[in-house]
């Protein structure tokens, strides 16, 4: 019996999401009266692995990359499934991000284990094993029963609080072994922008819609995001028009995020937009139309012209900072 948590790394480093996953796994293991084990694949040093111990993990299985040259979902899924079987996992936890979404379904098939994706809290009940998950793009939640003995959960980012609980983890290091590494995919080119806060990682997001009027009006919005250490986002028409890059589009057909604070500036609050942001802890709306539906989703608001309110907000934040 065990709870296994797959902790992905980014160039050998973990991030807050990794610690959220570990906090969740440790808590769930406690409920199930078993131990939590972290599984890490790739090039991660002991010092970095030990940081997982801050959140109560007692054992870490580290598989060095070996024959794997790049992330390949087929190969990684095999390694994760093999480890889960060897350790007799009752529950396997992964992130509901790009990697987790491509791995969890494959592992589910390999282990014939029921999968619930995008959970944002601990199971509602252990027997039967019931979790609550977001459905209909946030318009409802469903209680889903996972009917197999091994279950897989993918956890939504920024939905579970970190729980410090220092432990000194045992690290078991070995080289990933695959009989015949799958070679179906080959990387030709990688383009990465560095230094910017990722939209999916950001705790504060400042987002603009068509009410921003023209792409030239974005400077104060970007400044506000920078001052707050956050990321910028936009509604779909804004990215469709090419005012802002596609990666910034949030909503049903864009990114689904759950920051602590989301500023919706000149965004009407269409259901498709809300689908991507309704799990934000706080939504602040700035809109010239007092009847805009965004105010029904927001906890704080200002009725006003964005081109006037935004610069004033920037000033207010500068004052707060000084």
């Amino acid at each position: 019996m065990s709870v296994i948590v797959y902790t992905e790394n980014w160039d050998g480093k973990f991030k807050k999401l990794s610690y959220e996953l570990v906090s969740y796994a440790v808590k769930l293991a406690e409920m199930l009266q078993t131990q939590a084990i972290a599984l890490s694949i790739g090039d991660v040093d002991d010092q970095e692995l030990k940081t997982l111990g801050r959140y109560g993990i007692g054992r870490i299985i580290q598989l060095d990359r070996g024959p794997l040259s790049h992330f390949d979902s087929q190969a990684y899924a095999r390694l994760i499934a093999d480890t889960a079987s060897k350790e007799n996992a009752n529950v396997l936890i992964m992130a509901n991000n790009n990697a987790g979404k491509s791995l969890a379904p494959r592992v589910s098939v390999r282990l014939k284990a029921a999968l619930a994706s995008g959970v944002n809290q601990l199971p509602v009940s252990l027997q039967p094993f019931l979790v609550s998950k977001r459905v209909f793009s946030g318009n409802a939640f469903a209680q889903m029963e996972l009917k197999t003995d091994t279950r897989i959960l993918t956890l939504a980012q920024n939905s579970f609080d970190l729980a410090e609980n220092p432990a000194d983890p045992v690290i078991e290091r070995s080289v990933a072994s695959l009989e015949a590494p799958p070679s179906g995919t080959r990387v030709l080119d990688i383009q990465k922008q560095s230094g910017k806060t990722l939209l999916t990682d950001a705790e504060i997001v400042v987002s603009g819609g068509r009410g921003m009027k023209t792409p030239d009006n974005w400077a104060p919005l970007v400044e506000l995001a920078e001052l707050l250490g956050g990321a910028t986002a936009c509604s779909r028409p804004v990215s469709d028009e090419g005012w802002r890059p596609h990666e910034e589009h949030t909503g049903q057909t864009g990114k689904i995020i759950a920051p602590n604070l989301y500023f919706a500036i000149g965004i009407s609050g269409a259901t498709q937009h809300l689908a991507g942001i309704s799990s934000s802890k706080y939504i602040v709306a700035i809109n010239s139309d007092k009847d805009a539906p965004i105010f029904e989703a927001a906890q704080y608001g200002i009725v006003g012209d964005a081109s006037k309110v935004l610069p004033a907000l920037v000033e207010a934040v500068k004052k707060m900072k000084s």
Partner: protein
Amino acid sequence: MRILVCISHVPDTTTKVKFAENNTRLDQTGIQWVINPWDELSLTRALELKDDAGNGVESVSVAHVGPVSAEPTIRKALAIGADAAFRVDAEPRDAYQVAAQLKKIFETAAFDIILCGIESSDYNGSNVGSMLAEMLDLPSVSAISGLRIENGAIIVTREIDGGKEQLSVEVPFVGIVQKGIAKEPRIASMRGIMQARTKPIQLIEPAPAEPLTAISTFDPPKPRAACKFADPENPAQLIEWLQNEAKVL
């Protein structure tokens, strides 16, 4: 090159979802069903690739798992331009059971590129495409926002954290598609609608797969507190609330 696009049909996103029988199932009255938005974009991209004869795409087919009531959705895909359709006659129950049905289609006819949407906007699972790939023991690439054919080789663009990656993939493979794969969904022309009436929909007997999950109840989201308004002349007030009341700054 043969392309298969898996399509699910979902309530139109502006539909107010309601539940029946003590919130144990979706109330289907008044629901407008549409092709899942990502599947519509996948189909559009597949047809664009076929339009350019240099790509050597012989056919674009669509696959759907569902009862006969879904046929209007399938006809719509045929009207948009798909050449043929497959329908597995089974009530979709969860991602695992649906993937097992789709696998049966692949066993009936061979395809080089199988496209699935990144998620379906009803159960938001993001699972079917990768499950199908694993069942077929095929490579897959998730979150692809670009797909092209270059001298017979398949090149995909996928989104990674903080950037983009280009990969070449051997066929057959499963591509799991997100935004960006095509700009606007293609719409059916009058001629397309006429032609769709005579295009074949091949019926496939369901595979004996059981779902691994079951939904017991649905709950509406928790209502949020009413919005608190700050004076537009005094945005500092808003910052003060965010700092001291919400404690998010």
